């Protein structure tokens, strides 16, 4: 019953010819935005070390650049890359062409309008004022339109599928499209309804912010990992049943946990307790997924040394496990009293978005780009370099922020220490964070270079043959 992706794709590749225009546009565009978002990251990390840096120009103040970095990474890079990969893998899993390449390309044009408007409005000071939902309302409306276009295209493809049974990646992508619609509407529009203020608004914001990671980036990231781990290692998925347990427990459990972002805060105690109980239950879907991935690799680990996609996939899996172990721990009241609001938090967030989900997406990109451009990767060596830069830079950033943040939390809990001392003492941590950021950014530049060189090389090759 557990049809592996390998069989499905093999029987599919014979009759159907994929043009993949939408996938190409989204993926290459996303990588460019990743580098731009990375530049913003370096500037804001520098501001922690030199607070005057670009300080007197209002458009480049910290509080306006940070949301550009966050939204740039989330929407410009990660979601766009994930959408591009979905445009690649859904048609293959369904054994048919994408429902409409024209609609896909139109979605991509709209996406660029969104990203450019986001940069201009956020720097201009028109942020909505809700974390992750920072974009002004009219830009959020464009996001909704783009998402509906994306949804129609994917569901249209699924409706015309040749294989009755749907592979787990297909479920995750369908789940992402459905949940995102409601999660996004809650965070960006329900929060603005008349009479929604204060704690009520915060609770709705957290429903969105938390599930932006849990019900958007998690399921689409897992869809990618579920597709590419068996594909890259040429081994069938370990267990279909386990993937079902993981999926349906995620669908049920995740949405309950938003209030764990306000533990000890001014929000009803019983709601805090519910969020903690469900946070601990999150260990179920996480364990089911990670066990499935690791078991699929059984006997195949030697492949890691010469397969850059697998390197990204497996380190992404480990980061996913660690993030999802941290999450429930942080929600426990005793741990939360130390880690909450400290630099631990960006450490945790970066491990999820960069370490886990961006690694999955990059694995997908390295696999997909040579195939859709019908060529080979420009350089395996450069790909390896980019991997090690991401891994070492990422690890040192996460570790510096966890250790520094935990220490900071202990210091804050001793109120006889003046606050400003804790700022001054954290400086070395922020310097390490900046240097790690430089490593990660170099990885991004190599990644972009390698992909662009592959694309240009493929074009040249085609031109020479014509």
């Amino acid at each position, binding site marked *: 019953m557990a049809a592996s992706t390998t069989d499905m794709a093999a029987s599919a590749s014979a009759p159907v010819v994929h043009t993949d225009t939408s996938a190409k546009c989204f993926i290459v565009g996303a990588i460019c935005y990743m580098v731009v978002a990375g530049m913003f990251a370096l500037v804001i990390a520098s*501001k*922690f070390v030199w*607070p*005057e840096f670009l*300080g*007197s120009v*209002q458009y480049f*103040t*910290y*509080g*306006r650049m*940070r949301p550009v970095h966050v939204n740039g990474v989330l929407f410009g890079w990660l979601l766009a890359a994930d959408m591009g990969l979905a445009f690649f893998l859904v048609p293959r899993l369904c054994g048919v062409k994408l429902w409409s390449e024209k609609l896909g390309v139109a979605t991509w044009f709209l996406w660029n309008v969104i990203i450019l408007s986001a940069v201009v409005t956020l720097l201009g*000071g028109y*942020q909505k*004022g809700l*974390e992750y939902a920072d974009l002004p309302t009219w830009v959020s409306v464009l996001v909704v339109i783009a998402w509906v276009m994306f949804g129609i295209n994917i*569901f249209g493809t*699924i409706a015309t599928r040749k294989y009755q*049974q*749907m592979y787990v990646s297909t479920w995750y992508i*369908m*789940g992402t499209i*459905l*949940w995102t619609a*409601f999660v996004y509407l*809650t965070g960006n529009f329900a929060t603005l309804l008349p*009479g929604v*203020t*204060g*704690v*009520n*608004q*915060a*609770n709705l*914001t957290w*429903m969105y912010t938390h599930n932006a990671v849990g019900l958007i980036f998690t399921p689409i990231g897992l869809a990618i990992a579920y597709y590419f781990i068996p594909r890259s290692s040429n081994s069938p998925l370990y267990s279909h049943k386990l993937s*079902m347990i993981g999926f*349906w427990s995620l*669908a*049920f*459990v*995740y*949405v*309950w946990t*938003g209030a764990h*972002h*306000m533990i*000890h*805060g*001014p*929000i*009803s105690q019983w709601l805090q307790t*519910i969020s903690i109980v469900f946070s601990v239950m999150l260990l179920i879907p996480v364990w089911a997924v990670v066990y499935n991935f690791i078991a699929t690799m059984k006997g195949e680990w030697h492949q890691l040394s010469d397969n850059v996609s697998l390197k990204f996939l497996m380190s992404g899996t480990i980061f996913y496990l660690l993030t999802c172990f941290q999450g429930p721990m942080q929600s426990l009241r005793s741990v939360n*009293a130390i880690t909450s*609001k*400290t630099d631990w938090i960006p450490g945790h967030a970066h491990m999820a978005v960069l370490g886990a989900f961006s690694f999955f997406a990059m694995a997908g990109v390295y696999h997909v780009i040579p195939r859709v451009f019908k060529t080979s990767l420009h350089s395996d060596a450069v790909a390896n370099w980019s991997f090690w830069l991401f891994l070492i830079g990422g690890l040192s950033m996460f570790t510096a922020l966890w250790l520094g943040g935990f220490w900071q939390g202990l210091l*804050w809990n001793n*109120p006889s220490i003046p*606050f400003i001392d804790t*700022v001054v003492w954290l400086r070395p941590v922020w310097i390490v964070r900046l240097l790690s950021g430089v490593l990660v950014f170099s990885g991004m530049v190599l990644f972009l270079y390698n992909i662009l060189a592959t694309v240009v090389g493929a074009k040249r090759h085609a031109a020479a043959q014509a």
Partner: protein
Amino acid sequence: MLGKTDSNATWFIVAALGLFFIGGLLTTVAPPLLDKSWNTAFVNHDPSKGMTGELKPYTEQENRGYAIYIREGCKYCHTQQVRTLEADTVRSGWKGVKAPVSTPDEFVNDWRQTFGTKRTGPDLARVGGKYNKQWHKAHFNNPRDLVPGSIMPPFPWIANNPQELDDLVAYLQTRGRAKDWRPDGDYEK
């Protein structure tokens, strides 16, 4: 039942949304109906019932200052919540008096919640009345002039704009003032 979702997309959609909406509705729509303090402004004039005070609506000027706070993304470095932690009440306290813990009824006029996620700077939930306008002006102009080692950004375009400075300071002076927590009304203007 979930077995069917494997090959039937309609079943899948029903199940995926159904499971999601149980938690989705119970954690978003239900709480404000169950906990009235989320939507009822704090007011108490009877000292025997605990701390006195009243949450007042924002004036036009305070609202303009509020918008500046949002525009500059101050909330990315400052939280506004005295949590149920001893250290929080001491850190936000004044001259040995502990600050009261933040409660939902103090925030019902907040059209953009500013609870925040990260404390790069101190919590501002009880900063109302801590400093006078002169202090804020100098601080916005260059925080390091007043607090060496600070990494708060300078905001010269606010400090040198009398209207914006007045507005933002007016907003800051409202923070935490619904509760009359300082003895003898000892607040800076």
